[in-house]
């Protein structure tokens, strides 16, 4: 028996005693791109027996703690964190095992250094940063690993997206220190209550070897010393790299009684081996997640089940699982959602963009005020064409109701129509605006619901309607306070968004207290109830008559966006990652509940003191996310996203940015005309109506609802929310009545339809749902 084998045997015995190794090791399955990383320590957690390819995935690697093995992650169970991570679209899940060495410190070559190699390999072969989920001392092994040089270049930390630690003793273990002090007679410098509690546990553990009493087995080992509070071994670890997100999860148990009546005060034990303070000592993501279990008695700690907050139980606590999965899902989205890229540069500022399908037009004007000349750039087939010169005009705005058909208007009252890839000549639609420089009644905005219905609005609140062949005479919208101007010589910015010939929403900012708006119902304008938005750069974008977003407002009070729900307004909170200097220039809302907004940054504030980077923020699922595409110039001015998922943003320097899947979730909402996308309740009803055998084939037990619902040509793909989680996606058909399809239908009809169509949602074409290759 060599030393390693002997220690492995001891560890195995301890693990058995502790009851930690409750499931067989996860199955190793080779998949393309995984062979080079798999070894005795690094194994892939398979989803329903199928190993997803590492290449292109976001690797999620789980590392265990002391007195444990990779089996603790229970990857073969669909309800475990690892089991669920393995089923996430876009992810591969892995476990790292140092069980034979788990009485050694993390500097052992088989622990920290080997883990560093595993991380580097996963990142290199996947093409993505790795998400690490670490339990207990696994977090310290991670600290060591991410501080090592990466054999493929840089540091290992450079290839880590986030570290999530569960009960990691960043500062060491108070209880372990107390045990050691009692064992060796060392001087005790920490609160006396902990030594009292440790002595009580030592007494209670006479005759008991399982549960928390198993911790006593590490005392004579290397980690028995290394994991003491503020130990030299912990101090000597490489510091956590700056900028690496680390999210801490901790347990919180309080001991209330040691003899007779209660203690003078409850004693914080954290998750027992690790105090809460220690488990949350290195937290970079904002706020640690603490699982609170209230008070416990010594009897329950030693003889009963200490509950979900107990160190060993934390990783299987449903709340912990949920918060870890949420974090993993966010990192997958970060990594896999296509990014914004600089696409082209216009001759000068871009003042307006409009997209329809996979087609966009950007317009702007360059030159001195009063003598500016316009230009238009067309995006088609994934590329931008050279700018086409238009006529004079200080400010251009454009609207494309259909791919290949757009109408652009100038503030000076001229319109240009793009059709069959040719821009028409200038057509004077409003002579009253044709004054140089800009008139107080300049044409401000245009919105087209179709090629035969566009509405242009002027600074004095008039609407001019295009019917496909001619423009109407101006008609007052009826925005109180707009005429005469509150501030003579200045004019308001009036914005409009039309979704059909029977619905437009128009409005403006009069001053800091008045921002009137009105609705077009197909025959007349009528004022809306007052909205919360007040002030500068009122801009509106509507997905339909029941969902519009207004952006702009007074950033200083956080009033930068609000939503119209068909009957009234509600103000939105600012994005969490931005301060009060944020100000949106525009938002574009291609569907209900989904908007993409550009931060006007410095150009909005107009002050170097307030200067900040601009960026792009996404409103989805009731919250702002972002920023993406931080723009050092801070002058992103305009954005448009089509219902096909294409987004284009531009700044006042002429930089145009494209995200082909900027609204990736939008793509899945593309729907055949006349068929509504079902909601969670409807899907749940269809799910429950399906035969049990079909439901079970989706491995999604106890479904409680559905999220991420996407529809396309009668197919519905949604993610089930489950009590006991299962697969990442479930597919329904809307042919006939809404119904759950079989796996055979998935691989035949669904696959044929999706793989044959160029406009099918991109996310539907890839494993684990199907593969079109």
């Amino acid at each position, binding site marked *: 028996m060599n030393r390693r084998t002997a220690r492995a045997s001891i560890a195995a015995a301890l693990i058995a005693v502790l009851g930690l190794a409750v499931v067989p090791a996860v199955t190793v399955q080779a998949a393309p791109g995984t062979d080079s990383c798999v070894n005795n320590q690094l194994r892939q957690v398979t989803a329903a027996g199928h190993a997803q390819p590492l290449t292109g995935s976001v690797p999620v690697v789980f590392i265990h703690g002391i007195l444990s093995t990779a089996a603790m992650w229970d990857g073969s169970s669909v309800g475990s964190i690892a089991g669920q991570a393995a089923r996430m679209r876009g992810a591969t899940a892995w476990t790292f095992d140092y069980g034979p060495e788990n009485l050694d410190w993390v500097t052992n070559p088989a622990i920290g250094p080997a883990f560093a190699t595993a991380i580097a390999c996963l990142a290199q072969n996947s093409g993505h940063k790795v998400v690490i989920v670490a339990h207990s001392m696994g977090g310290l092994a991670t600290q060591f690993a991410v501080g090592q040089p990466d054999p493929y270049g840089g540091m290992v930390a450079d290839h880590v997206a986030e570290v999530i630690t569960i009960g990691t003793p960043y500062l060491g273990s108070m209880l372990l220190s107390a045990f050691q002090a009692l064992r060796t007679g060392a001087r005790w410098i920490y609160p006396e*209550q902990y030594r*009292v509690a440790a002595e*009580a546990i030592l007494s209670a553990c006479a005759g008991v070897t399982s549960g928390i009493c198993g911790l006593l087995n590490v005392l004579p080992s290397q980690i028995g010393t290394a994991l003491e509070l503020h130990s030299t071994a912990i101090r000597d670890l490489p510091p956590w790299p700056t900028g690496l997100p680390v999210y801490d999860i901790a347990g919180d148990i309080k001991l209330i009684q040691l*003899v007779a009546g209660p203690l003078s005060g409850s004693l914080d034990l954290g998750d027992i081996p690790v105090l809460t303070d220690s488990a949350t000592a290195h937290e970079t993501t904002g706020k640690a997640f603490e699982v609170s279990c209230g008070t416990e008695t010594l009897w329950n700690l030693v003889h009963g089940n200490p509950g979900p907050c107990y160190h060993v139980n934390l990783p299987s606590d449903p709340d912990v699982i949920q918060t870890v999965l949420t974090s993993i899902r966010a990192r997958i989205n970060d990594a896999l959602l296509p990014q914004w890229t600089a696409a082209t540069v216009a001759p000068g500022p871009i003042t307006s963009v409009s997209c329809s399908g996979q087609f966009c037009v950007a317009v702007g004007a360059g030159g001195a005020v009063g003598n500016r000349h316009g230009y238009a750039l067309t995006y088609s087939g994934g590329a931008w064409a050279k700018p086409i010169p238009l006529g004079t005009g200080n400010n251009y705005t454009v609207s494309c109701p259909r791919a290949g058909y757009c109408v652009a208007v100038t503030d000076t009252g001229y319109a240009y129509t793009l059709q069959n890839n040719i821009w028409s000549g200038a057509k004077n639609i409003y002579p009253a605006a044709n004054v140089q420089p800009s008139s107080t009644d300049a044409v401000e905005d245009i919105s087209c619901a179709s090629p035969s219905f566009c509405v242009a609005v002027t600074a004095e609140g008039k609407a001019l309607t295009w019917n496909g062949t001619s423009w109407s005479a101006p008609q007052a919208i009826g925005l109180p306070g707009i005429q005469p101007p509150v501030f003579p010589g200045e004019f308001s910015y009036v914005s409009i968004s039309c979704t059909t010939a029977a619905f437009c929403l128009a409005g403006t900012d009069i001053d800091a207290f008045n921002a009137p708006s009105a609705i077009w119902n197909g025959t007349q304008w009528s004022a809306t109830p007052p909205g919360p938005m007040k002030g500068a750069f009122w801009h509106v974008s509507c997905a339909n008559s029941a969902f519009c977003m207004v952006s702009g407002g007074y950033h200083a009070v956080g009033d930068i966006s609000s939503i119209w729900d068909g009957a009234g307004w509600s103000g939105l909170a600012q994005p969490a990652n931005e301060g009060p200097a944020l100000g949106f220039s525009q938002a574009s809302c291609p569907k209900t509940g989904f908007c993409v907004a550009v931060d006007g940054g410095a150009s909005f504030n107009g002050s170097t003191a307030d200067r900040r980077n601009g960026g792009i923020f996404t409103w989805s699922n009731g919250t702002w996310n972002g920023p993406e595409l931080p723009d050092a110039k801070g002058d992103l001015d305009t954005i448009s996203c089509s219902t096909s998922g294409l987004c284009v943003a531009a700044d006042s320097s002429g930089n145009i940015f494209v995200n082909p899947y900027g609204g990736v979730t939008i793509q899945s909402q593309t729907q055949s005309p006349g068929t509504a996308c079902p909601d969670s309740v409807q899907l749940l009803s269809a799910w429950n109506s399906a035969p049990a055998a079909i439901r079970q084939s989706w491995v999604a037990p106890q479904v409680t609802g559905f999220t991420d619902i996407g529809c396309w040509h009668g197919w519905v793909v949604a993610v089930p929310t489950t009590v006991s989680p299962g697969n990442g996606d479930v597919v329904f058909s809307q042919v006939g009545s809404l119904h759950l399809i079989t796996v055979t239908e998935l691989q035949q009809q669904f696959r044929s339809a999706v793989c044959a169509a160029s406009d099918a949602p991109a996310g539907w074409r890839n494993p684990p749902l199907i593969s079109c290759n």
Partner: protein
Amino acid sequence: MKRKILLASGAVIVLVAAAAVVFLLRGGTTAQEGSSIAGGDIPSSALASVRLMVSAHGRQALTPELDATLPKGQLFPAGTVFSPTPGSWHQVGAYGNVTGTLRVPGQAPAVAEIGLVDRGSHWLVTFEVRK
């Protein structure tokens, strides 16, 4: 001669291997070093401390450290009795525990466990907990 050398070498190897195994096992086994008793009867000196604990002078039975963490006052009302369950004494090294029935006047009898530590000259109580 060769046979003797071989035997001697074999013996040395066995001894070294045995010593190594013992060393490794000691290195990884329980921290509760010392003699172990499972299921015996509580030592009389430990039982004396338990009885002292339920008396009017109960605090004198506690370790001084535990005593300092508790609110002032008598631990148990007069008339409290603890009856150890025969064979319930467990001891590892200096630490032990005993299970029994705790009868507190006015309360239903309860199964209780009492922990003790041998501080050389006498046992002191480290905890008392009821099921």
